[in-house]
């Protein structure tokens, strides 16, 4: 088992490099580059002079051979230098730092909100499976999933501006500086994202609880006549929470990507919108850095999940008794 863990950790390096390489190649295969945008190709009066274009490309290092560009970036990573944004010239890390607190706050609070809703609701639905309580919870949560996520945000904003002539503040203030201003800006995005995640988590909690409830030892507890509440809380939840918690942990990583639409709709200066802009502008160092970081989180979380399940179910095991090794 320990060897397996070591192998997986070591394999993370080539995996991450693989991701970085694929992204790099794709960004170069795709037509158009940032030099064109810098020269205002999209603006009226944009005079895309070929010699200026060559100059811009040279300044940004885009005319170097591909392998040089890739390896110099990788070499930079080793020294923790993630390069500079091709659009602003500022270090990528600095650009990320400006936007990170906002995205983190929305992600964390949304997850919190969704968890607080999902666990009680999901458990309730599981206990009362196939009753009207179950049906209602399932309909509401599927309904929540079915509505396109950008739609709810937009409808919400419209509602606020039409009836209250109000829209959230435009500038991000960290929560420790001015909590009220911070909440004014982030409350509705958190609610929008959290509501959606709650829908997902509710269903997952429900199935997880159902799972555990069927276990023999639980049925024995029922038969013994222990009060339902005790049975549920002490035995069921404890075991059911494990998969739910790992799911929530994994969701946190994906939340980052999912915030793209929310940040666009609510005008938040966050990482989600930033990576979309970077991709559309072909700001390659930014894209690569962000993809690398997200990939790292995802791969790491997957490893943890796999290990947890091996621990949970002795039938699945890695290492010496590896299934398939003859």
């Amino acid at each position: 088992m320990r060897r397996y863990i070591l192998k997986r950790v070591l394999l993370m390096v080539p995996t991450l490099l693989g991701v970085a390489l694929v992204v790099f190649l794709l960004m170069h295969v795709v037509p158009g580059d940032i030099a064109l945008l810098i020269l205002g190709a999209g603006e009226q009066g944009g005079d895309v002079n070929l010699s200026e274009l060559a100059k811009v490309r040279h300044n940004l290092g885009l005319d170097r051979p591909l392998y040089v560009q890739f390896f110099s970036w990788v070499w930079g990573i080793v020294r923790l230098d993630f390069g500079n944004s091709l659009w602003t010239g500022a270090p990528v890390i600095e650009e990320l730092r400006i936007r990170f607190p906002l995205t983190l706050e929305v992600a964390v609070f949304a997850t919190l909100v969704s968890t607080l809703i999902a666990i009680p609701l999901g458990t309730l639905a599981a206990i009362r499976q196939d009753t009207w309580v179950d049906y209602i919870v399932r309909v509401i949560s599927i309904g929540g999933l079915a509505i396109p996520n950008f739609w709810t945000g937009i409808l919400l904003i419209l509602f606020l501006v039409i009836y209250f002539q109000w829209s959230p503040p435009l500038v991000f203030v960290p929560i420790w500086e001015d909590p009220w201003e911070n909440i004014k800006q982030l409350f509705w995005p958190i609610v929008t994202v959290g509501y959606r995640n709650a829908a997902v988590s509710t269903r997952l909690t429900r199935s997880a609880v159902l799972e555990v409830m069927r276990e023999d030892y639980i049925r024995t507890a029922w038969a013994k006549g222990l009060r339902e509440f005790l049975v549920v809380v002490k035995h069921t939840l404890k075991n059911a929470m494990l998969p739910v918690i790992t799911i929530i942990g994994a969701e946190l990583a994906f939340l980052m990507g999912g915030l793209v639409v929310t940040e666009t709709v609510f005008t938040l200066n966050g990482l989600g919108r930033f990576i979309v802009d970077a991709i559309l502008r072909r700001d390659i160092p930014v894209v690569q850095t962000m993809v690398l970081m997200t990939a790292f989180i995802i791969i790491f979380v997957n490893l943890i999940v796999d290990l947890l399940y091996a621990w949970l179910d002795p039938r699945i095991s890695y290492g010496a008794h590896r299934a398939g090794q003859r």
Partner: protein
Amino acid sequence: MAQVMREGPMSLTTPQLTAVAAGRRWAGTRAWPAIRKFIVAKPLGAAGGVIILLMVLTAIFADVLTPYDPYTVNQRVQFTAPSLSYWFGTDEFGRDVFTRIVYGARVALFIGLLAAFVGATAGALLGVVSAYLGGRVDLYLQRLIDVMLAFPLLILALAIVTVLGRSIPNVILAIAIPIIPRTARIVRSNAMSIKENMYVEAARAVGGSHLWVILRHIIPNVMAPYLIMLTAQFGNAILVEASLSFLGLGTAEPTPSWGLMLSGSALSYAEKAAWLAVFPGLAISLAVFGFNLFGDSIRDALDPKLRHRS
């Protein structure tokens, strides 16, 4: 974007044990009586099924259902409110919204079904192969799956759409690819535990070839998680297409696609012509709702452990 891709009744990191169990026990059931039992026992799922059926019929009979063409621009009837001649009103070009919704069902179904099918099938195959061959092959294939999982849908969509163009097949490709690793993971864990079973060892001992073992024993047992992923991703694919269109990477005008209708005109004209936002939104929500209800109940039905206490 990636968050959207994580939905589904049996989400990707759901207890793999359930999938395994479902796979094992389903191997023996017969199809038809199971379906009848399904309708009775799972009214929600049946409702979902009805919605899907309606959608399919609408798509097939689109030209019968409406006399208009979804593309013709008619200045004289721009922004007409819903009326007898234009049931859902008209849009900013004077095109009938009902017509575009109805033809949009074709686009939605085509994209949803195909993307889910291609993605889930490719993923399932990958999972089976990875599990069956095991060892080093499995280890490295899993890393490939990790790479695919980690890859942002947005970059993939951008790459496909810019190089190959914003056509429907390309959008399908962009949506299908992220489904592959997610299905692969689930199917693989299922297949892995089946491999442990004695009867597989027995089949090999008797002299069966690899292919035969895979076809006869493993594949039937991974049908459950495969079908679950499939139905889960139908609805999801439609949502992802809507989001991609919102960001300008999905289908393009003048294609009548619900996602495009919702992202384009709907927002700017939401107050002047609310019907432009309401109907495509309802269509998407209903379709996804139906697919998810149906898939949810399939999942419940296929997992004997979760059948109602009896």
